[in-house]
């Protein structure tokens, strides 16, 4: 890609912050796609078509990354020299690891016993945990500029999102 588009936030004319107005992001995304989508150049020259495809792919990538809190936080960390390295870096605070273990056990049990009430309690707990992690991320990224701490929180958030998906699958089975 060209060096002219260095940053996902700048592409959409947004401040590079974790706190983000989802509506503003979506509007900016659509405004950019309206200009660059290959459909706008269907009868254009080969050069225009190629440039349009690159830009539209770039806008899709940027939008997909920024729209989810996880993608946005990971992107900010990487931009500031604190890559996530989820595969190799599994170090987490002991307290979080213990909680993770407890949640997993509770999920296995609730799933085994097909217990909707237990699943609903887990849903509440994971929602609270997610909200707490998101506010901690906002503090680390937007106020303290502590990207190493934020990268650790991103790894926790990855677990939370994965757990949430498994919980949803278990709820669908039980329903």
């Amino acid at each position: 890609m060209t060096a002219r588009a260095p940053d996902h936030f700048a592409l959409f004319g947004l401040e590079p912050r974790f706190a983000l107005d989802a509506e503003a992001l979506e509007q900016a995304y659509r405004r950019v796609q309206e200009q660059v989508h290959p459909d706008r150049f269907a009868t254009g020259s080969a050069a225009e078509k190629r440039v349009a495809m690159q830009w539209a792919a770039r806008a899709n990538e940027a939008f997909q990354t920024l729209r989810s809190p996880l993608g946005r936080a990971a992107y900010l960390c990487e931009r500031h020299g604190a890559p996530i390295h989820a595969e190799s870096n599994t170090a987490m605070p002991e307290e979080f690891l213990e909680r993770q273990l407890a949640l997993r056990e509770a999920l296995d049990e609730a799933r085994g016993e097909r217990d909707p009430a237990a699943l609903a309690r887990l849903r509440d707990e994971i929602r609270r945990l997610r909200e707490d992690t998101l506010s901690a991320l906002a503090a680390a990224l937007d106020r303290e500029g502590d990207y190493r701490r934020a990268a650790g929180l991103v790894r926790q958030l990855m677990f939370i999102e994965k757990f949430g998906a498994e919980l949803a699958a278990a709820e669908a089975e039980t329903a």
Partner: protein
Amino acid sequence: MALLQIAEPGMSPAPHERRLAVGIDLGTTNSLVATVRNSVADVLADEQGRPLLPSVVRYRADGSVEVGFEALAHQATDPRNTIVSVKRFMGRSVKDVEHVENLPYDFVDTPGMLQIRTVAGVKSPVEVSAEILRVLRERAESALGGDLVGAVITVPAYFDDAQRQATRDAARLAGLNVLRLLNEPTAAALAYGLDNAAEGVYAVYDLGGGTFDISILKLTKGVFEVLATGGDTALGGDDFDHRLYCWALEQADLSLLPPEDTSLLTVKARAAKEALSTKDSATIQARLSKGRWVNLTIKRDIFAGMTQHLVQKTIDAARRALRDAGLKPADVKGVVMVGGATRMPHVRKAVADLFGQEPLIDIDPDKVVALGAAKQANLLAGNHAPGDDDWLLLDVIPLSLGLETMGGLVERIIPRNSTIPIARAQEFTTFRDGQTAMAIHVVQGERELVSDCRSLARFELRGIPPMAAGAARIRVTFQVDADGLLSVSARETTSGVEASIVVKPSYGLTDEEIARMLQESIGAAEADVAARALREQQVEAQRLVEATIAALAADGDLLDDDERAEVERLLRELIDIARGDDHLAIKTAIDRLSRGTEEFAARRMDRTIRAALAGRRIDEVLPE
């Protein structure tokens, strides 16, 4: 002032001249072509006023080809050379085709895509489809009185990369410039103007002659997302005809008819079925061989009763698609009906009962897909005036794309439902010391095992410098364009040694193959081919000259004097060469101007985006 010399008579058309563009529904049973004239989309009929072209091609020993009704008439007498429903074979191998043993064709099991041996030689499904598209192109050109700038061609939403690529190749072979491949349910929704409706989930229920498709679409401000698709590739209006035919046999106490009686009675049964869509009863009258008469009356409710199990199959499939999408019938805001078989009242009633609302039937269900495609073609051709109704379709890729990794597992690179176009890269490494080559196997599908997915392409990256295991960095880039077509490239990044390759999946035709097929195509004398190639290149040259002049006028300040002089030089060169009759020279000059303006195009795009975001911290946008 250089510009004044450039805009010479004959090179620059009148402003706002309408560009001729069509939408084509390349269907399993029938195909149609439609265009927008005076802001209204309309299907173009043949000289006898028939809008549908049966998707049937017959090859004859003398090398001539029959397409449509003419070919259909010979299906019973010359089944081996009369190819029906070729769409089922596009991008498929023999083992992919269901009930292949019941088909009358002499298949050749070529790798990637099957071929069919006919009396006129071995034909690929791409060539057969191209015959259908060529007839539609000629129909459109004679009706509209000029060459087409391009066509939008519809494909089923679930078509994978192989099937889309085959469709695109067929269009090229038929001399069509493909503006876009468009999903059929999306086209149907466009015909109904759902793009400007409020957000919501829509179902498209498509019961054709031989296939049933159900699609669940989500519309969000011009984004059409396919949430789920389902259906039955062996269920359609023909099965209703057959049921009625069997009933007639029972009633008339007949059995084992000779082929001509079977086909006569089937035709009568179909006519009765169609009559029952508007009347309470219909008659089946036929004079069979040996002087036997059939004279029966069928009531609508009797017919509905004997075919209810067929309708129920479609309803079950629709329920499954809804379940796959995680939705309930009540979540669906509207149901679009596609395909002639949806005219049957008991089909409509079953759909209405399932979704709890009357389905949309205002547009002719045979034409709705072609009409939507025509609207999109008109937009893409640039015929919309400022202030016209406008929309942007952001389509998604229907199936995930990935690579084979150790143990026959799939590493997913681009997940299904990603908005396209998209480019994504993933790094891999070597697993042996001194490894200098790496096999790359590209697959498409949702399963974890390579053997359960469709194999798209295999290629080898060679020339990796010998390193310790795990030291090399192989970057594999997947790019999917706005038609959902994939290209893959790979390169080793640590060594500075560039080993790079771009593959087109194996079933795709090369430019040389297309050229050879064009040369061989029957009915096209060599002079015609050359004349057509020249005209195409001249049209292309004119379009590029026009676009470049407009770009220079609008954004010429983005170039410095030297850059501008170079663009103008290439422009003058193309204008000169385009006056001649050497189509290859014109193509070369087009490529040169096109390459020479790439940087200019990129700068203009930057400016456009800045303008679009103007007022939103413009200093932050795309810093140089």
